[in-house]
């Protein structure tokens, strides 16, 4: 009886909604050497993200938005400037800030359940049963309970990204970093995932930084849309999205926001082209 009680409380603790992080990005610069010479991916970018905020970074490819995401994750180091998560300097990757990539990056040598368990196995205080229960909880959240024994290659693109989402959520991070996670999916699957993601975000309260080049997607998901301009990567403009949730990507209000933002995006992209 006592064992059961302990398991229940450990599980409850593991599954509880934890406080999301506050992120501050301060004057971050980053350049790469490429064949064409030095490329300034980010030029003194500063951005604050509030606890539990859903921020979308939008821009043409090569504007440095993915680089910024990697720097927030701790996977890359900035040349100058710094990133703080809850006031603490980010120096290396850590499971408080989990990343979901464009390709699912699921491990083909593990089945669906094994993939979701991967991050949980790195939390030493959990028992085997805790881990299984947590993994199954998130698989249910993304609607894939029936597929826990499936191999990765047997899943459709949308299912893979659902598993990737469950895998990223399972260790209960404070921040979720998403790098064009739905870009490779068909429109119908994508729309379904927009709904699911909003719902999960509301119930699990995470700070989300979401990179995309799709303005409508950004408006549908974000509290705020941050526009980047390329060469060098800079923040050009920001839009607060004041629409009730859950949002439908096909709604008229959303389309109005999108066209306004798209105009802004085209405006400075064209300027850029004129200069180049």
């Amino acid at each position, binding site marked *: 009886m006592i064992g059961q009680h302990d398991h229940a409380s450990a599980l409850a603790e593991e599954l509880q909604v934890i406080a999301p992080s506050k992120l501050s990005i301060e004057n971050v610069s980053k350049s790469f050497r490429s064949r064409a010479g030095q490329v300034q991916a980010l030029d003194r970018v500063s951005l604050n993200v509030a606890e539990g905020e859903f921020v979308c970074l939008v821009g043409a490819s090569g504007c440095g938005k993915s680089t910024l995401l990697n720097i927030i*994750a*701790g*996977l890359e180091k900035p040349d100058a400037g710094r990133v703080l998560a809850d006031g603490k300097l980010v120096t290396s*990757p*850590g*499971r408080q*800030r*989990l*990343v979901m*990539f464009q*390709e699912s*990056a699921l*491990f*083909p*040598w*593990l*089945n669906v359940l094994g993939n979701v368990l*991967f*991050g949980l196995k*790195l*939390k030493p205080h959990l028992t085997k049963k805790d881990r299984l229960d947590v993994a199954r909880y998130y698989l249910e959240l993304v609607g894939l309970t029936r597929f826990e024994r499936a*191999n*990765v*290659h*047997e899943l459709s693109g949308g299912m893979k990204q659902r598993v990737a989402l469950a*895998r990223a959520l399972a*260790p209960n991070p404070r921040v979720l970093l998403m790098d064009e996670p739905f870009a490779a999916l068909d429109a119908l699957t994508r729309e379904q995932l927009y709904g699911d993601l909003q719902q999960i975000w509301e119930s699990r309260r995470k700070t989300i930084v979401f990179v995309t080049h799709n303005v409508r997607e950004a408006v549908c998901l974000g509290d705020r849309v941050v526009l980047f301009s390329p060469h060098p990567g800079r923040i050009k403009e920001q839009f607060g999205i004041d629409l009730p949730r859950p949002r439908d990507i096909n709604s008229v209000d959303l389309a109005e926001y999108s066209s306004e933002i798209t105009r802004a995006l085209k405006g400075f992209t064209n300027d850029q082209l004129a200069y180049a």
Partner: protein
Amino acid sequence: MKRLLFAVLFFAILTGIWEWAYRAKIWSPVLLPAPQQVGEYLKTAAEDGTLYHATIITLRRLITGYVIGLVFGVPLGFLTARSRVAHDTIGTLALGLQTLPSVCWVPLALLWFGQTEAAMLFVVVMGTLWSVVIATDNGVRNVPPIYRRAALTMGSKRLHMWFKVIFPAALPFIVSGMKQGWAFAWRSLMAAEIFVSILTGFGLGQLLHYGRELSAMDQVIGIMFVIVVIGLLADKIFFSPVETLLHRRWGTSA
């Protein structure tokens, strides 16, 4: 069931042709014994224990050398994949020595170790090691960087990263290297046993050699048959199931 039937039929026909060639006296019976004679040799050799002992001795040499080759080969491959210095030195050495047919180690092994078990072991290890090093190196280099990145963000590092991410991700390459290493080791051991008689034990290769010395063609063909069967069994019992498992997991067609 149908597949088995076809296979049995195929080998029955093959034996039939052999029997016919024997009866037609195309070659002298000294050069081509009847299938039945070979069968009788195998039966006698099995009953008096010759075959059993020779097989055990050969397999012991093979497996010991192979395991040593794996134990050193896989970590060396990891090393050459991760360190540029190791790649330029050990990696180049491995690439060079892998192109050397492993039989070529026999004279050197004889001079170094004399007619001993150590010489046999050395030849088998050399046959295994370099293939495994190169395959592991190649496998580790081919692990998509995104797996590492994903694992890093989930808190995996150092040993955990090696054992739980890099190793399994490189496994398809490592297994094909193991298979090649096995083939090389098996060939070089047979060559060594045929060339060298060692008083500590007669392996299958030595039985083959003495079959030739005595012009006992039934023994020569019988032992060749045993060698083929061992090769087939190694593939069917060990490599095939592992490969099937990997193919099923990865979704690559077999």
